[in-house]
């Protein structure tokens, strides 16, 4: 079945009788891409699942407020990113009394995660990525793993293309330096 375009979907979402049908189409279309975006930030499958559910629940309760001033996918991505940041901030607050950084804890847990299939090199790369500030990490993931264009990333994050290019460039430099140090 062909996916209806944004205009058609939006009118269905604003129609009480067709809202559920339209929402199911959205979930089917975007759940996987949103999931991976979230997963690469939080590493754990269980956490990513919770955040993904919260993302769609939030979009369901706020459908009436979405007027179509951006693409539906952009709107959903923004909700997913905000939910991810909220989750990470909460975890950081819970972890305040600990001497270990949250990111270090997340990577340590990855080693014993049954849903992580990477080797030693892949684990080192994840450690390197987790040393980046959150926003820079997000930019790196979207560019490196998703191979998104800078213009698409700019639409989602509301950051200029120039700033994104600089951010990605510095992220790559930091990761390379970290990996070189680990190997030596």
């Amino acid at each position, binding site marked *: 079945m062909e996916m209806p375009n944004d205009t058609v979907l939006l009118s269905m979402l604003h129609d009480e009788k067709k809202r559920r049908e339209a929402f199911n189409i959205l*979930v*089917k279309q975007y759940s996987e891409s949103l999931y991976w975006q979230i997963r690469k930030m939080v590493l754990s499958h269980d956490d990513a699942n919770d955040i*993904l559910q919260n993302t769609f*629940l939030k979009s369901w309760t706020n459908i009436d407020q979405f007027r179509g001033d951006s693409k539906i996918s952009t709107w959903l991505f923004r909700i997913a990113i905000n939910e991810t940041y909220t989750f990470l901030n909460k975890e950081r607050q819970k972890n305040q009394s600990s001497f270990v950084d949250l990111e270090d804890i997340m990577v340590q847990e990855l080693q014993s995660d049954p849903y992580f299939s990477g080797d030693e*090199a892949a684990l080192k*790369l994840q450690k390197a990525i987790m040393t980046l500030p959150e926003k820079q990490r997000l930019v790196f993931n979207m560019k490196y*793993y998703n191979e998104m264009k800078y213009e698409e990333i700019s639409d989602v994050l509301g950051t200029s293309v120039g700033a994104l290019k600089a951010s990605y460039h510095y992220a790559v430099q930091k990761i390379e330096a970290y990996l070189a140090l680990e190997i030596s």
Partner: protein
Amino acid sequence: MKDKNLHLNETGNRSVFKVPENYFDDFQAALNKRIDSLEAENEKVRDVEVESKPKRLFLKMDSIRPVLYMAAMFVLLLFSVGLVLNLTSDKTSSSLHLSAESTTQTKTPATNIPTAEDYLINSVGTYGITEYYIESGTEE
């Protein structure tokens, strides 16, 4: 850029994360279940709000009305007792036989604020007060 990023190129951008079997297929059903229970909760909250809002106010007034009445009576009682005590407090006997003119003279023209005594005299009159004290004297 590619040659500089030796380590990144070695690792590549392949995904190293897995998901449980049929996760994405089951995700939609799990989400719909949550939405259904959320909608049911919202429906309940809306019904409760519509039914109880006006009644809640009415019931509150009904339950506190007797308390208000009692409080008002208590205040009135205190005021009356205070008034009576004021009148029977240590005054000399000569002050009781004052004529109407002299009672008006005891008023403080400067302030012109009527006292409980003034009020009583105006309502009962000096004759009434005299009668009261004569009667109370004979009873003793």
